[in-house]
Structure formats: C-alpha cells, structure tokens
C-alpha cells in the first residue's frame, strides 16, 4: 500500500528535492504540497494523509503550531536545517527528523519508521500540544495560542486571552467574549504561560491578571474574581494567596 503524504515547506527548492526523492522511492504518493502552516492544517484536515513532511520555520504558523492543530493518526517527519530546540522534541515524539540536506538512504529509513508506527495501533504517548511545550526554549513563554475550529485556524495573542477554563480533556480559552476549545491539559498550558501575567487561581481556572477588576468574598473559605467584562471565576484559598503575592495586599 502506498503511503499518502503531504509536503510542507515554504521553500520551493526544498519541496522539490523531497518530491524527487519520494518519486524515486516509489512507495509514497504525494497528495498535496503546502508553502505555509495554514495551508498545511487545511490540507491535512481535508485529505487525511498518512504522513506529513513538516518544516519548522514557516510563514503564518510554524511547524510546532501545525503539529498542535492536526489530529492523529498522522505520522510527522520534521524536515529542518538546524534547530537545537527542535531536536529535543523530535526525540520525544515525532516519527523522525531529517536534517537538510539529507540523502535518499536517510529518507528511506525515515519512511521505514513511519510505516512501522502507522501499522502499530498504540496511541502516542505525548499529546502534540505537550510536545510543542517541550520544544519551547527554556525561559521563553507562549506569545500566542493557536486553536482549530473546524477548518478555521484561530490565533489568540496572549494579551487578548482573558482566562482559561478546564473542561474534562479540553481547555476553553476565553478571549474577547468568545471561547475556543482545545485539546490540552490545564497544567500544560499553565506551564507555557508567563507566571507574571497569568495565575492559576483555581484547580480549573487560569486568569489573565490584567483582566481582574476586583476580588469578592463568596463563602467563608472561598472568593470570586470579577473580571472587567463581568465574568466571575472561583478563587481557591491557595489561588488567593498567589494573587496577593502578585497583585499586592490591596486587591
């Protein structure tokens, strides 16, 4: 059976060599070529390929963001020139990675691994969003969140994110009166957000500190945070301690 593959790279020549190698190998059918991240997410959603060759630095969405937005079971092979942080992530979860320029032999090996993985029905150990978190250089915080809504890709800049709410296996990202669902754990997004701007005020809530209008008592032991748009979020006792540290006593 031929594997159905999509090539994603913003450089024409980089796509060209991959196409040439794959044509020669004969066991792969290229169903689409994409020059940026948006196209890639759309193509993967519509064409449901087995295999994705993914560059990292691209216009619109980078390779990791694309990875966050596509649904398994797509085997991803990263193709990149050099990225010290990415290498760490490849070890964690991608099928394989090809360092440009690569040989036909090396590509054959990557294809072999992809076949082996696709025939093995075991779910992947790591979620794509967690993988993307692992790939982020230490000390660098998330500047935007990408969410897929059907075939649409929404980009939420961190400054426009009001609060995050845990909903079973999903998180709801609230921004400008709308909310977006994303499959990720609340702890994993907490680790990606700048702790000076966002605080986990409750087991299920992370709030943007700039949005808090006031804190009101609720029951004897708990409080609610009232946001500028009127939303009310529960604040646990440890959450309140955290807020006092970040915003000072007079909140």
């Amino acid at each position, binding site marked *: 059976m031929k594997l159905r593959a999509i090539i994603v790279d913003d450089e024409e020549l980089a796509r060209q060599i991959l196409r040439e190698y794959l044509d020669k190998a004969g066991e792969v059918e290229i169903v689409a070529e994409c020059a940026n991240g948006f196209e890639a997410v759309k193509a993967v959603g519509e064409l449901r390929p087995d295999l994705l060759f993914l560059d990292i630095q691209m216009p*619109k969405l980078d390779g990791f963001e694309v990875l966050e937005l596509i649904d398994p079971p797509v085997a991803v092979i990263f193709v990149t020139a050099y990225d010290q942080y990415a290498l760490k992530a490849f070890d964690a979860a991608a099928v394989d990675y090809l360092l440009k320029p690569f040989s036909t032999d090396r590509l054959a090996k990557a294809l072999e691994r992809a076949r082996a993985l696709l025939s093995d029905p075991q779910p992947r150990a790591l979620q794509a969003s967690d993988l993307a978190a692992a790939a982020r250089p230490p000390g660098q915080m998330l500047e935007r969140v990408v969410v897929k809504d059907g075939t649409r890709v929404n980009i939420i800049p961190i400054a426009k994110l009001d609060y995050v709410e845990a909903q079973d296996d999903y998180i709801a990202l609230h921004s400008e009166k709308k909310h977006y669902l994303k499959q990720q754990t609340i702890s994993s997004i907490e680790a990606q957000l700048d702790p000076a701007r966002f605080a986990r005020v409750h087991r299920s809530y992370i709030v943007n500190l700039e949005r808090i209008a006031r804190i009101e008592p609720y029951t004897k032991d708990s409080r609610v945070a009232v946001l500028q748009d009127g939303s009310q979020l529960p604040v646990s006792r440890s959450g309140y301690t955290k807020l006092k540290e970040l915003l000072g006593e007079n909140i």
Partner: protein
Amino acid sequence: MHPIFRNTATLSAYMGLWTILAAALAALMRIPGDLNWSQALSISVPLCLLYAFVCLTPWYICRALPLGSAQVTRLLINQLAAAVLACTLWIGAARLLAFTMDLGPRLNPAVPQLVVLGLLLYLMSVALHYALLAVEASREAAVQTRDAELRALKSQINPHFLFNCLNSISALTSSDPVRARDMCVLLSDFLRKTLGLGERASISWREELELARTYLEVEQVRFGARLKVEMQVDDGCADCQVPPLVLQPLIENAIKHGIATMVEGGTIRLEGHIEDGRLAVRVENSFDPEAPSPRRHGLGLRNVRDRLRTRFGDAAHLHLAAEHDRFSAEMVFPCHKTIS
C-alpha cells in the same frame, strides 16, 4: 573584597606608604614641642596602621555612588559624612592611645593639625578609589569590546543559512545543474570573503557591501521570486572604514524575520549615504506582524549595537523601528577614510 588584598605586593606597598606617613605624622606632632620622638612615634605608628584600613572603606561607598551617575549632592553628603565619621574615629583613637600612655594633655596642642590631616587623608583616599574604579571600568570595557568582536565573528556564518543553501544546491543538482554550479560559486565566494575577516579590525564599505550583495544573491536562489532587493547606495561611502560584518546581521535579520515570514515574500531596501561626515545605512523590509515568534530574537542586532558602541561610543547609533508591516534598522557611525 577590596582589590588591594588581591595580591601581597600591592598590600605591602600600601602599608609601606602608611609607615612613611606615620613617620611624617610623628614629626608633625613634635612641632608644638610637648612630645619627644619616641612618644610621638608610639602614638602615630599604631594610629596610622589603624587608619590605613579605615581608608580602604571608601571602596564600598564609591562603588555604590559612582561618579557621573549618582546625584552630586547625595554623593557629597555621603562622602563628607563618611569623612567626618572616619576623622572622629582617628581623633578618638589618637586620644585613647595618648591616654593609655599618660600623654593625654601633651597631645592636645596637636589636635587641630590631626583633625585637618585625618579629613585630608580620608578624602584623598576617596579620590584614589574613584581613580581605581575608573581604571577597572576601562579594563572591563576592553574585555567587552573583545567579547563583542569574538561573538560577531563566531556568528558570521549562521549554520541555518549554510545548511539551507546546501539543501538548495542538492535540489538543483538534478533539476538545474547550471544553477547548482552557480550557487556553489556564490556560496564559496561568500565563505572566502568572510574567512579572512577575523584578523582585520576594519574593512571598506565597498567590501562590506559586496559581501551583502553576494549573500543576497545566495538567498535569492533559495527564496526565488519571494525576495526582491532594492539598493540605493552613494558612491561616496565606498572608502569609509567599517567594522567587518556590521551590515551582514541587518540583512540576515531582514531575511529571517522579514521575507521568510511572508507567504508572498517582500522587498528588502538598502540605502547608504554620507551625512555630516557620518555613514548612514538603512535596511528596510516587509514582515508579517502576526508571524510565529522567532526563536532566537535580536541576537544579531544586539551584537551590532554592542560593536558600534564599543568602537564609536556615543558617535554611533542603531535605531530599530517597526511600523505596520515594515521594519527598519538604521545605523549611523563616523566615516573614517583611512584604516584606524
């Protein structure tokens, strides 16, 4: 720790100086006529040994209140207060020494001179400490210059650039061998030109520009129609001496954070002209303000700024501006026509 304790030679020289001062002080205390040599020395020697250490304390105050950046009144008040305190200690110690040797009343006529001397010695040590700090600062600046130069040379060939080029060549070998060969030649040209730069402090603007042109030609192969270049450079600049690879990071930045972020690509505009004996260079490019955040931001530009500052001081500047979808880097520095 105070730098004087760093080696025994400076410490012994310092203590030697104070021994001479102790002898001079004894002579001074004899003038009113109430003390003989041995009495005067038995007070002045321990007194000076003690004061030698007191006069090391300005090190901490001077570091906390550097000349130039600290407020003048605050600096004066603090230093004078410290001087009065030190002098009080000096007089107190002198009186105590005299008292234990039953010479109390005989010291009295020398007290006014002692007060003046105590203040003077302390303030002199303050001045010396500021000089010491200035020496240390200039030594540090020299180290920083060297570091900045080294960093610049290390980063002259970005591995990302090199591997992407080789990948393009690899792709072209089967589809367009002639272009593959052209690209090999261009890349070799670029590498050869950058290799020799390590030993040179300055190169002419002509050479720097040539380097940037070669670089852009190589990138042109990679990006094809996505990369458009416009150049408007006055011939008058050609002989200006510039730090090697000072333009290169600006161009690299324009590609990496500009052209590479746009699906349709964009234009890099390079301008250079002479303005009041200074070379003004401007690199402008389009970029996508909503592009994914870069992983290694601004390291190259920071390097350029460091190098300009260490080389030209306040006479040079690098100004960065982002407006809508245009980014510009403007760099101005003195144009010396001969190798400095």
